[in-house]
């Protein structure tokens, strides 16, 4: 049996795809809250109308009227753990960002004391440049960069998140873009050179290609890997049971290429491309 990626033949290939896209956000939180309140109100209205119908029926028959229902009050316990809900932005940095970027900011909010800003997918490079260069912001470090797959997302399939840090003011800021399948966001290496390997990891794990990246290749999986493991439709268990066959000289051609690239040293490093 040759080395062929076939998730359907894996022993435990059943994948439970999520039906929701739980992207945290202020608008989503408000809509969710409103929906919950409306559902509670409708439930209460139904209870009360049932009570009134029973009351009129009892009055017409001369029987004992039923007990009126009591509207339940939501419990609030000050000692209970509170889920950090998204709040309106109060931090000056977020206000500056909205002022400078204008239309390209889709949403800003604070949650658990963290600053979050959702940017339009086409304006992410401009936003990163602003965060890095603007004197009042000066987020000089890209601490981390991740992405998530939301197969049930409406109009988007991935979120790419940039974690920025301002060392001087000890502040952190999170930028987020929601992108559809196949969209190539601008590479952050043009502003933060450290994003190079982070973006390669995102490409390796989720299959998001970044435009104007110096070397858009896999970084964790072997070069001839098929599929992107952090996607939700990738089977979690079972793939390791496959047989490995080296008769095709799986690494030979790629190894030669890598050795040429690394100056005939067997180092898994990519050459730095000149400007």
């Amino acid at each position, binding site marked *: 049996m040759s080395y062929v990626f076939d998730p359907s033949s894996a022993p435990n290939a059943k994948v439970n795809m999520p039906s929701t896209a739980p992207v945290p956000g202020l608008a989503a939180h408000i809509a969710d809250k409103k929906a919950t309140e409306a559902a509670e109100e409708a439930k209460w209205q139904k209870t009360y109308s049932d009570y009134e119908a029973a009351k009129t029926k009892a009055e017409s028959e001369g029987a004992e009227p039923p007990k009126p229902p009591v509207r339940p009050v939501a419990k609030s316990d000050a000692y209970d753990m509170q889920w950090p809900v998204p709040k309106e932005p109060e931090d000056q940095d977020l206000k500056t960002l909205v002022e400078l970027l204008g239309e390209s900011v889709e949403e800003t909010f604070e949650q658990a004391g963290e600053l979050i800003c959702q940017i339009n997918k086409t304006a992410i490079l401009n936003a990163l440049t602003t965060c890095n260069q603007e004197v009042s912001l000066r987020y000089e470090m890209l601490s981390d960069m991740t992405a998530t797959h939301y197969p049930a997302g409406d109009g988007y399939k991935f979120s790419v998140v940039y974690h920025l840090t301002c060392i001087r003011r000890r502040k952190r800021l999170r930028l987020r873009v929601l992108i559809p399948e196949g969209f190539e966001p601008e590479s952050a290496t043009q502003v933060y050179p450290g994003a190079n390997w982070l973006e390669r990891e995102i490409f390796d794990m989720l299959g998001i290609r970044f435009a104007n990246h110096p070397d858009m290749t896999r970084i964790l*999986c*072997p070069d001839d890997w098929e599929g992107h493991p952090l996607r939700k439709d990738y*089977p979690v*268990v*079972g793939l*390791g049971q496959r047989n*490995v066959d*080296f008769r095709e000289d799986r*690494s030979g051609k790629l*190894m030669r290429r890598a050795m040429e690239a690394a100056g005939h040293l067997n180092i898994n490093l990519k050459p730095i491309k000149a400007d």
Partner: protein
Amino acid sequence: MGVNKANIAVPTALEHILMLTKVEQFMNWSRATSVWPVTFGLACCAIEMMAAGASRFDFDRFGSGIFRATPRQADLMIVAGTVSAKMAPVIKTIYDQMPEPKWVIAMGSCATCGGPFDSYATIQGVDKIVPVDVYIPGCPPRPESLIYGFMKLQDKIMNSSLADKYRELFEPAHS
């Protein structure tokens, strides 16, 4: 007394200076008492392998303390740790570079059967890529386990036969 001195064979002068054995047995003895492993660790089992080689457990007692830094001088590969799909061709290359005769010990659950990592990136046992002589269970196995497994390998080497090797190489249908 009860000992009949006439039944005790007195060694002759020739037998004082000569030992008679078979070539096969002599070769096996020399191989089993000088197995040099390749310096090769993949994960936490390698720490236990180092402990087995250090002074407290002293792998050297069995003629096997010389961990060689090149597979070309080694006889034994102790696969100590998780074998990932990206590491598999490297392990295969190292195994191919070792000269015959060569042996492989799969040390620990991961190298034996994949261990707890039933994931896309982990090879479920190193025996999917190279032939394994001795499997040592444990997560990780103690140095005593490794030494016991190594002594089992020594038994296997002592019981091996050149005829078996010949048959394995040239008459695979009959073996």
